């Protein structure tokens, strides 16, 4: 008895042990938290207004007044970088909330129910999967006008099928397993079976995929911004900042490099987080 009870440790200590064992999770989580902090407290952190134009000080190199220099309109790059975290994270949040749950639910239903339900859900998935993502985003923007949400919507609408596919394959494999047979025998069925028993086994791989996809989505959003189809100027956004910087890339390289670096670091953070989360979510990993 005493040997069993001493295994109980406080939640804080448990978290500390887990984090110290997985450096990638700690680093990834730290990067994402810093970016999140920047986005939330942008008005207090930014030294200048991100849209304030000082044409006298345009294309300045990093200095005491402007730590990362100024762009072609004399706007402070550091301030724009800090404000630029907002659309990026908003996009990520939008996609996470909208796309992953839809994809996973469709996949679990198709995999567990099988038959006609599976065939029809998977054909819909096939159709959506065959849409080219960036072209659909262009079409959305062309119809509804440029803007962050229109671009994000297009990205979200085209990225759920991968989750549905993955969840279906895993669920179909589980449907024949003894765990589910045992659960069925004791009278567990319906949503309780699907979301209480199937979901926990499907979720880890979906979370990893999500975190990997997020870096891709940040890049896609930056791509939309770069093409001038994302956030409308003068709002700061990392992709459009890179686009602005390319005009002067040989003389003032830091203008394109700093937002590019921000994109790189954030994508990297999500990738590390994905790697670490997998370890954390598997109880067998003690």
């Amino acid at each position, binding site marked *: *008895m005493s040997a*069993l*009870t001493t295994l*109980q440790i406080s939640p804080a200590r448990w978290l500390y042990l887990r984090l110290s064992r997985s450096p990638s999770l700690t680093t990834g989580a730290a990067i994402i938290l810093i970016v999140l902090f920047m986005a939330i407290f942008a008005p207090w952190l930014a030294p200048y207004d991100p849209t304030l134009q000082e044409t006298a000080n345009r294309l300045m190199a990093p200095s005491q007044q402007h730590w990362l220099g100024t762009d072609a309109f004399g706007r402070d790059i550091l301030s724009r970088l800090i404000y630029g975290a907002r659309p990026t994270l908003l996009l990520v949040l939008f996609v996470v909330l909208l796309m992953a749950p839809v994809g996973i639910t469709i996949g679990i239903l198709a995999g567990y129910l099988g038959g006609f339900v599976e065939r029809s859900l998977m054909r819909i998935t096939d159709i959506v999967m065959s849409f080219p993502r960036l072209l659909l985003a262009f079409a959305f923007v062309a119809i509804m006008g440029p803007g962050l949400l229109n671009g994000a919507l297009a990205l979200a609408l085209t990225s759920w099928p991968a989750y549905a596919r993955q969840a279906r394959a895993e669920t179909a494999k589980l449907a024949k*397993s*003894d*765990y589910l*047979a*045992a*659960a*069925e*025998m*004791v*009278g*567990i069925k319906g949503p*309780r079976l699907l979301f*209480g*028993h199937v979901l*926990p*086994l499907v979720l880890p791989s979906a979370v990893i995929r999500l975190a990997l996809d997020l870096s891709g989505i940040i890049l896609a959003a930056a791509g939309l911004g770069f093409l001038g189809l994302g956030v409308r100027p003068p709002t700061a956004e990392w992709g459009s900042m890179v686009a602005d910087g390319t005009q002067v890339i040989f003389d003032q390289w830091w203008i394109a490099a700093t937002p590019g670096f921000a994109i790189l670091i954030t994508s990297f953070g999500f990738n590390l987080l994905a790697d670490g989360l997998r370890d954390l979510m598997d*109880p*067998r990993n*003690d």
Partner: protein
Amino acid sequence: MTSAVSVEQLSISFPSAKTRFTAVSDVTFSVEEGQTFGLIGPSGCGKTTVLRAIAGLNTGWTGLIDIFGAKLEPGRKITGDTRRNIQMVFQDPYSSLHPRHRIAHILGEPLKVHGAEGIDAAVGIALDRVGLSPALAGRYPHQLSGGQRQRVAIARALLLKPKLLLLDEPTSALDVTVQAEILNLLNDLKASHRMTFILVSHDAGVIGHMCDRGVLMSHGRIARALDRAALSELTEDAVEAAAWDETPGYRGN
């Protein structure tokens, strides 16, 4: 004694690419209340398939299955009281417990679904009944040994107070020393809970220790019925021999 389970002319086939593969044909037997009935045979003879049909996990059968006066219908899931009355212990305790649920959840959820109260206490009692410490409730299945897991699986099967317990080679995945413990536990529980067992096994020792009556199966059919005396004389070779009987090309080797 009344008949607890009666199975008549049970045939089960699985659809395959071209033809239907018939795994079990024309199986008829009956089990009396309070007995342990053995379904014996070499691997691949269809004994587990029969058990899964009685359990309601495979509904693609024809014939007649009657359990405590309730007729099961092919193609339909078992519901209501009959569902509670039939429980099963699976062969492999490593795959029958959900790997991401704690023991307390595994044992508590069936009670919750059936609207029971005082679940924590009931889980403690259920663990105690199978000889486990209630302190194990906070653990995950992977933190238990094979024997402990099988005890948890037995505790889960007993939670709903079934009248019929189906045992699918409950000890074949376990160490020899643990096997005896589990079998004795099952015999004790049977006496105290007034249950009827149907035991599937290919192990002559297990059959001899547990069963009152049984049938020897071979190639999806009943080869012969065995009474208590025949069961205790059953040898490993006799079970194996059933596999070779009627197999073209092997006779006379």
